């Protein structure tokens, strides 16, 4: 936000002098002063267009007072505005009569009925009776404009919010007004659809019931809904949401306007992931494998069995043969309790919450994590191997906005173009095995058009992506390390895979780590855990390889299918087959169920309170809106119960106990209190010594966001924010830097691991496989939510024209991938110079067995042949 915008001016509203920010539209300035001007088309996150005329007010000009749209006119010093006069009321009355002339008034069967701005504003400002007796227009009801969204054209009031959202926010005008006059309608291109990752937002922002979601249509009435504030857990962005439910069933999720995070938008994955909670494949009770079948058992039997096998294994062969994979998708509380049990009591260090490789913990804990606001306002944003739209969709919207507004300039380095390529200052296609040696010689600031002397390190942000699932974490950190040599104070934003990967790492769920960035082997005397690990454990890939070689006895799978993004499924299969016991703490049956010996039912999304920490290290609350399914339990409760069965007392009876201990031993969390989460809409960035710009509480648009703050005006009543935790220590600020020594050590420990070399191509017709991360590629949400699973599409292969020539294939050919004896199914090939030569880009979509080529050890060389 520029200085100019922050400048305050005063104007006269209904006779009283009011302060306002210069440049704000009258409608917003008035709203902040407590005067609500009715509106339809105005949306605080989009450019005003003045289309609906509902916001007409009288503004004094050279010709005296005239009616002008309050959303379109900016406040100016000493401007005189009247919002309530005969003329204004007559105008509002007239606009509403006009809008209602052709409106079907089918409120009793309309999803929007009860939370409809057209209903509400007609009641408040409209004519009591209609003078229109002619036949109203009719359209075929409803038409499908995307796989998710239905359009009832006769309900549309032509506010243009949906079409503007498409063009302005998403940048793809896939819908537009068609026709003219009374026959005007919102329409996709002939034969086209509105399919994109953000289509669900138009359902939320449509001020009438013209746009409805297939899954919510006719499901509930808004006044019957209960709602709870929560956070999306479908990626590491942590978009703020409200969960709305009726009769213990979640009905829909809406985005909250959080200034720091999602600006009210959600991606479709986040909006519809909740459906997985009520899916058929939920685990409702503990299961135990008996005679090769999973049989439902009681908690006691299941836990006793696990405890027995675990104790025996630990006694016989020691903690090195026990491992846990996952933890990036469970809450902070769960992660801490499991870390305490496994690391603190059982000395097991092979815990890895980033099975896909991910981002090196020493980078995550180094204290230089950028917030999203810093990313969109940095002088230079470096997108390293990042496909932001696929990896963190709403951040893509924010970056897109920032790049267009030139609040940041970005350079992208990747093997294939992305949806940001046309917006960044420079998009460099470099092969992964060359980028490490080249990156030092690239003049990043020149490419971004920033003068080096204008650039202090702090203004550089490196967005570390995982666009290629076959790149190892050591490749990634090697690359980042080289950038950090040049800009030592640059901040990084990791596009982590799990919603709570950051939190899990902070809780110690990585080999070598203890909570708060402490490393094993350097544990202070008074550390409250009795038996922390003595030697460095294995990461997930090594655990799986060891298990495949019969070196691992017991594997815990923590959280909803932690291995779904792991690109080498044959290794997983072997590993799970060969270990003596696999215990899944999971909410869903799924991919690996047939290899699992014990399933402990985990409560699902929306079924428990807790917190997660997103990629910018911001702690955010998870709300509970449902009774947990079956006898499922929270992750930490399962850890406590298992500890008890072994004979230990973790000392946790509630979340507050857990947080008390986290604060006692984790420097990162000092000064943080979970009770802050019930007051801070934007969550809390940890460590608290990091300065973050705190935006003032925004006045939200009730038409846009029937969420939190607007709820008094629209939609269901929001239960008072529940203080989840019952204590509140003083917010003491600490210096996070004192944790850095031990972190250096940690990175030394990490460095001792062999760095995976990258397969380099010797034979020209061999291509290096690049498994592209896709939003709907994998994960429990995608597999178990009917809406999302309907969006999964067959993976595409892409290749540069040069490589196509060498491999004798052409655009549109149906091809197979070959590597050694392995051969894939058939895929359509696209020849495109958006891919660096020598690389075959294949989208990673579960169910197409592309993972059989996967290997984290440096990637795979493949050939393509015509099928």
């Amino acid at each position: 936000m520029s200085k100019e915008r922050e400048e305050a001016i005063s104007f006269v509203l209904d006779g009283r002098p009011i302060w306002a920010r210069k440049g704000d539209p009258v409608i917003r300035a008035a709203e902040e002063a407590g005067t609500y001007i009715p509106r339809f088309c105005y949306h605080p996150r989009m450019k005003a267009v003045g289309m609906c005329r509902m916001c007409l007010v009288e503004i004094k000009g050279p010709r005296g007072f005239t009616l002008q749209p309050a959303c379109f006119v900016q406040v100016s010093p000493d401007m005189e505005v009247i919002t309530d006069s005969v003329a204004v009321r007559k105008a509002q009355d007239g606009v509403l009569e006009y809008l209602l002339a052709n409106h079907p008034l089918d409120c009793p069967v309309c999803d929007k009925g009860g939370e409809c701005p057209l209903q509400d504003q007609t009641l408040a400002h409209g004519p009591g009776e209609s003078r229109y007796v002619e036949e109203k227009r009719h359209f075929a009801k409803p038409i499908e404009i995307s796989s998710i969204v239905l359009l009832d054209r006769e309900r549309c009031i032509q506010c243009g919010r949906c079409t503007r959202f498409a063009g302005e926010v998403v940048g793809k005008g896939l819908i537009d007004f068609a026709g003219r006059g009374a026959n005007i309608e919102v329409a996709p291109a002939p034969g086209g659809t509105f399919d994109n990752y953000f289509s669900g937002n138009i359902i939320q922002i449509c001020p009438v019931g013209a746009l409805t979601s297939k899954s919510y249509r006719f499901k509930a009435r808004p006044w019957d809904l209960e709602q709870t504030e929560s956070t999306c857990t479908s990626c590491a962005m942590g978009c703020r949401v409200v969960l709305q439910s009726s009769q213990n069933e979640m009905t829909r999720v809406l985005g909250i306007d959080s200034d720091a995070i999602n600006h009210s938008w959600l991606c479709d994955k986040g909006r519809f992931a909740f459906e997985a909670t009520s899916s058929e494949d939920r685990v409702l009770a503990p299961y135990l494998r008996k005679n090769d079948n999973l049989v439902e058992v009681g908690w006691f039997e299941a836990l006793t069995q696990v405890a027995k096998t675990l104790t025996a294994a630990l006694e016989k062969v020691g903690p090195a043969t026990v491992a846990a994979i996952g933890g990036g998708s469970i809450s902070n509380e769960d992660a801490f309790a499991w870390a305490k049990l496994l690391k603190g009591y059982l000395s097991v260090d092979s815990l890895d919450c980033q099975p896909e490789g991910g981002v090196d913990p020493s980078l995550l804990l180094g204290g230089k994590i950028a917030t999203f606001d810093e990313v969109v306002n940095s002088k230079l944003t470096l997108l390293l191997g990042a496909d932001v739209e696929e990896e963190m969709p709403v951040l893509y919207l924010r970056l897109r906005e920032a790049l267009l507004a030139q609040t940041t300039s970005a350079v992208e380095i990747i093997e294939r173009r992305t949806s940001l390529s046309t917006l960044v200052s420079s998009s460099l296609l470099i092969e992964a095995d060359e980028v490490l040696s080249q990156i030092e010689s690239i003049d990043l600031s020149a490419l971004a058009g920033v003068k080096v002397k204008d650039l202090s390190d702090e203004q550089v942000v490196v967005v570390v992506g995982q666009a290629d699932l076959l790149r190892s974490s050591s490749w990634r950190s090697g690359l980042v390390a080289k950038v950090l040599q040049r800009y030592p104070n640059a901040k990084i934003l990791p596009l982590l895979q799990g919603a709570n990967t950051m939190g899990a790492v902070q809780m110690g769920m990585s080999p070598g780590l203890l909570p708060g960035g402490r490393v094993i082997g350097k544990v202070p005397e008074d550390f409250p855990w009795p038996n922390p690990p003595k030697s460095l454990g294995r990461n997930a890939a090594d655990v799986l390889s060891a298990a495949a070689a019969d070196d691992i006895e017991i594997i815990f799978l923590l959280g909803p299918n932690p291995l779904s993004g792991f690109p080498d499924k044959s290794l997983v299969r072997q590993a799970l087959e060969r270990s003596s016991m696999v215990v899944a703490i999971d909410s869903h049956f799924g991919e690996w169920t047939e290899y699992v010996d014990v399933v402990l039912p985990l409560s699902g999304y929306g079924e428990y309170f807790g917190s997660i920490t997103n990629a910018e290290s911001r702690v955010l609350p998870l709300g509970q809106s449902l009774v947990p399914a079956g006898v499922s339990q929270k992750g930490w409760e399962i850890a406590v119960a298992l500890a008890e069965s072994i004979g230990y007392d973790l000392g946790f009876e509630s979340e507050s106990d857990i947080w008390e201990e986290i604060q006692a031993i984790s420097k990162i969390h000092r000064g943080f209190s979970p009770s802050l989460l019930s007051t801070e809409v934007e969550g809390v960035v940890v460590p608290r010594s990091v300065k973050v710009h705190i935006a003032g509480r925004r006045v939200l648009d009730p038409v846009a966001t029937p969420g939190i703050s607007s709820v008094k005006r629209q939609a269901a009543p929001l239960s008072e924010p529940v203080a989840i935790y019952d204590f509140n220590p003083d917010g003491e600020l600490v210096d996070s830097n004192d944790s850095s020594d031990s972190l250096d050590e940690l990175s030394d420990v990490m460095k001792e691991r062999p760095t995976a070399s990258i397969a380099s191509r010797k034979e020209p017709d061999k291509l290096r496989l690049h498994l592209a991360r896709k939003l709907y590629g994998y994960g429990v949400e995608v597999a178990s939510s009917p809406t999302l699973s309907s969006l999964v599409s067959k993976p595409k292969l892409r290749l540069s024209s040069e490589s196509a020539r060498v491999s004798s294939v052409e655009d549109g050919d149906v091809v197979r991938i070959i590597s050694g004896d392995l051969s894939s199914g058939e895929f359509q090939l696209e020849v495109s110079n958006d891919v660096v030569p020598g690389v075959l880009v294949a989208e990673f979509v579960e169910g197409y067995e592309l993972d059989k080529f996967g290997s984290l050890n440096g990637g795979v060389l493949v050939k393509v042949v015509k099928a």
Partner: protein
Amino acid sequence: MSRFKDEVLQEALELVKLYPEARSATIPLCHLAQSVDGYLAPDAIEHIAELTSTTPAEVHGTASFYDMIQLHPVGRYVVGVCTNIACMLQGGYELLEAVEETMGASVGETSEDSLFTVEEVECIALCDRAPCLHVNYRYFGPLDEEGVKRLKSDLIEGRLEDEVPSHGVISRIKRSAPELIPLEEIDELRLVEDEQRSSRMAQKGGGDA
């Protein structure tokens, strides 16, 4: 059809170049596509979107605003019968009926032989020859049932080939950007005009009442 090809593509590219912003060429490009196919085919919509850096939905949205841009296939001759006030008083509806009967298509439809598409239109500014109609935007009137029959046979037998353009052609003027006029010249012209204006006013006795 069809995307633009060959000379038509050249022409399309020239049209795009006429404007500082590519999307301003949307409507001329719609005309161009229509002059080839008689209507704006989905493929053409897509191609126009590519040429103007917009989306097919936006091109379709723009095109659908205008009645003279056809979004569905039409017959070789689009016959628009005026039923606005002057024509209506002179028997516009009777003319429409005669056209429907003779051409073998009712309003909004195309005859089975794909020769005629019939439309009912608002005033086409030929009120002095009411009741009237247009065929591919060339005007005929006043007409009675006999006249319509004659018109049909003239069209079919090619006697009007020179007069009636092929379907879909709205404008036969090829647009090109005018030569740039140097700014100084514009300023000089302005001076001259201003002088002329003030002298005219002086003659009138001042004031532009």
